[in-house]
């Protein structure tokens, strides 16, 4: 089976019904995509398929309908996405385990809604859990990134 991940083609020999999460983590060693719950309750495994945020624990390999983007495809330390720059500016991460998923979810939000209110952010981000309780800084970072992206 062929997958396009962050612009590169990968051939994987894994069962059709394997969740994308585990194909990425254990098949392709893309470990930025995290296992948290396996039942779409925590958002740690969030990636994009054709730009839309999905819970990769709920997408069977055979059902992948487009190009996959993980946090590495969003930005790198040398070329940060505006959201990542805002995340660093606000020093959001604590343990950091959920943050790849948070950022991918926030990217989906800003693509659809470039100027979200607090309520918009809460509605879009409440599927992504953070046990370190970084929620206030996530909210602030999303607003900052939204402003930065408007200015470009």
């Amino acid at each position: 089976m062929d997958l396009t991940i962050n612009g590169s083609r990968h051939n994987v020999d894994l069962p059709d019904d394997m969740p994308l999460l585990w194909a990425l983590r254990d098949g392709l060693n893309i470990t930025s995509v995290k296992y948290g719950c396996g039942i779409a309750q925590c958002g740690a495994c969030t990636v994009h398929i054709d730009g839309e945020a999905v819970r990769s624990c709920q997408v069977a390999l055979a059902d992948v309908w487009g190009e996959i983007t993980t946090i590495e495809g969003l930005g790198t330390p040398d070329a940060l996405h505006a959201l990542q720059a805002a995340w660093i500016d606000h020093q959001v991460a604590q343990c950091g385990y959920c943050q790849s998923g948070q950022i991918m979810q926030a990217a989906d939000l800003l693509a659809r809604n470039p100027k979200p209110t607090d309520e918009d952010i809460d509605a879009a981000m409440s599927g992504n859990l953070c046990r370190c309780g970084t929620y206030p800084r996530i909210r602030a970072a999303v607003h900052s990134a939204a402003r930065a992206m408007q200015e470009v």
Partner: protein
Amino acid sequence: MSRLGTYTRRGFLVGSVAVAGGVVFGVRTYNARLENPLTAGLAPGEAALTPYVKITADGITIITPRAEMGQGIHTTLASLVAEELDVELNQIGIEHGPPSSAYFNGGVVEEGYPFPTTDNGAVAEFARAQRDIPAVFLGYQITGGSTSTHDAYVKMRRAGAVARETLKAAAAARTGLPAMQLTTEAGAVVLPDKTRIPYTDLAAEAAATDLADVPELRPRGAWRILGKSQDRLDVVDKTTGRAIYASDIRLPGMRFGALRRSPHLGGSLRGFDASDALEMPGVDAVLDVGTGVVAVARDTWTAMRALDVVSYDWAPPTYPTNTAGHFEAIAAAFNPDQLDSRQRDEGNVEAALANATTIEGEYRAPYLAHATMEPMSAAALMQDGALQIWAGTQGPTVARREAALAAGIPEDSVTISTTLLGGAFGRRGEMDFVQIAARVAVQMQGTPVLLTYPREEDTSRGPYRPAAIGRFRATVADGVPVAVDISTASPSIMAGIDARGGAPAPIPGFLPDFTLAQALWDQPYGIENYRVSGYKSEPLLSVGFWRSVGASQNSFFHECMMDELALAADRDPVEMRLALMTDAPSRAVLEAVAEMAGWGSAPATGRARGVAFALAFGVPTAQIVEIEQTDSGIMVRDVWIAADVGVALDPRNLDAQLISGVNYGLSAAIGEEITLTDSAVDQSNFHDYPVLRMYQAPRIHTRILENQRHIRGIGEPGTPAVAPALANAVFALTGERLRELPLGKNVRFA
């Protein structure tokens, strides 16, 4: 200065870690047990000037030997060394380093002392000065109890100063200039003519240099790094997907394991039939790991599915079958035979309550899961008699011992690599995932295996925060509480830890469990007749350390009681607490939070506020919670929190930790609860163990004060007071006194 005299090379190396608190008594005896764990791994021309500073031609590495579980400790520890070493944080690398008794934590010893942390008297201070001695003997390399900062505050700055002066001495020897004429800046020794010799260029000479004196530490006014907010050293990696947790370890040929243990917690496995599982494509093995079964497969998903088709024969449990039975057992502990501690007994409570009109209450707190975002995990490889383990552990030296015991090999055949931790909150001080990974590795010789706990295993098998009951009887006269008799009862954390193999050393059964009445007996209120008792129930479910430990339930009991007493006394709950407080820093945090929240003015219509105070882990903390009744239920709108840490090393990180502690406590107070039916835990994942989500997260306003005498840590102190402040706010809003956590059982939250 030099009471320590001239060090030999070996003595000098250990001296830089040992001087904190060690010069008074027993230096030689306990220094002899210390090693510098870095020297073994050095190549020619490289230097480990103390156990915390490694210099090679490639760069400068600071060892930050505490678990980075989100609290930012790697950055703070590196800052302590960098301040004195004269390097910038962007010039250094950091490593957790190997398990070693050199990285003992003296701070955890203090938490068990029988003195309130507000006691600055001579005996208490002398005991604090001696804290490192038992820590060294026990090889206490532990991250917990909010102790890392105050443990490291002197010794890691001193490590930086010793390394700096050693480098200067090496430069002096090379150039023939007196060391006094040399300065240091940004990773280099600077000569009088402004020539710079990089530290990395001096490593070989510095390694052969002895210092006569241990240098003085710089005063606070001279600090460049400490006292100012720093960017976390891990923040870029954690924002770009590069941070490596135990579950991200990948090795050539790696296979993936998933675990299933008995639904009867701690119960044994009598047998299992894995024949169906072994026929599944991709399944390598199904292993008996003593307390359960691990399926090993091509990937974690296949391993998890294989567990579902194994048939298990679990031994029956020894504890009550349902939640009510557990609380009955805890309630039965309130008797003289099960009294564990009575660390406060002032005046004559019995006499004062005998003929008085009393107020009484009984409070309950449930078992709680830690629910770290990263489920428990560890990677392990056994090869040629050597066992390597990669784990996010809060106790590397204990992990090494437990891995060796589980594998049946000597401790020096075990290597532990401590990764970043995807949350911990006490859970990763447990050793189960290390023990099980070791048992897997022994049975899969030559094959690296990554063990992952399915979320369901993580949620439903413990260990948990103890369920607990708090009871009080009190009386007020003339607007003042004159007698308070408050008790707490729960299963013992320390008893369980010892049995599970998590203790640094065997815990004698006759010692009281200091966690049981934590933050109940030592609150800084002056009440004429005041008695605090801790009762130990029979062992029930496995219980362990959960962020803020005993304070997490006891602060709820104590501070809701204070609200009840203020009502009975017809006093404002802030004003009454202030009048009773005997500790000035404690009063100051309560005054601060009242000012921040505008306590004196009424909240808006439909809103109400509650207040609570907690002295926990040496940090006086006060919180005010404001809630609003909405159509969809109660919303927590704002939390104001003030805390006194003595010395604020990194203000923005302190703010982050207070926010984190508040949200963690709020999550539990609103909705978290572990219950049992038919001897098994009812909750399994985030759908039935609801934790705080973003829409529920309030605005949190923090203030750090620096009035108290000692520097203190901040990982836990934000947690205890939020539950009682919320319960007191609910009372103010609804008139209903909720005495059971989670509050969401009896009132609807949005």
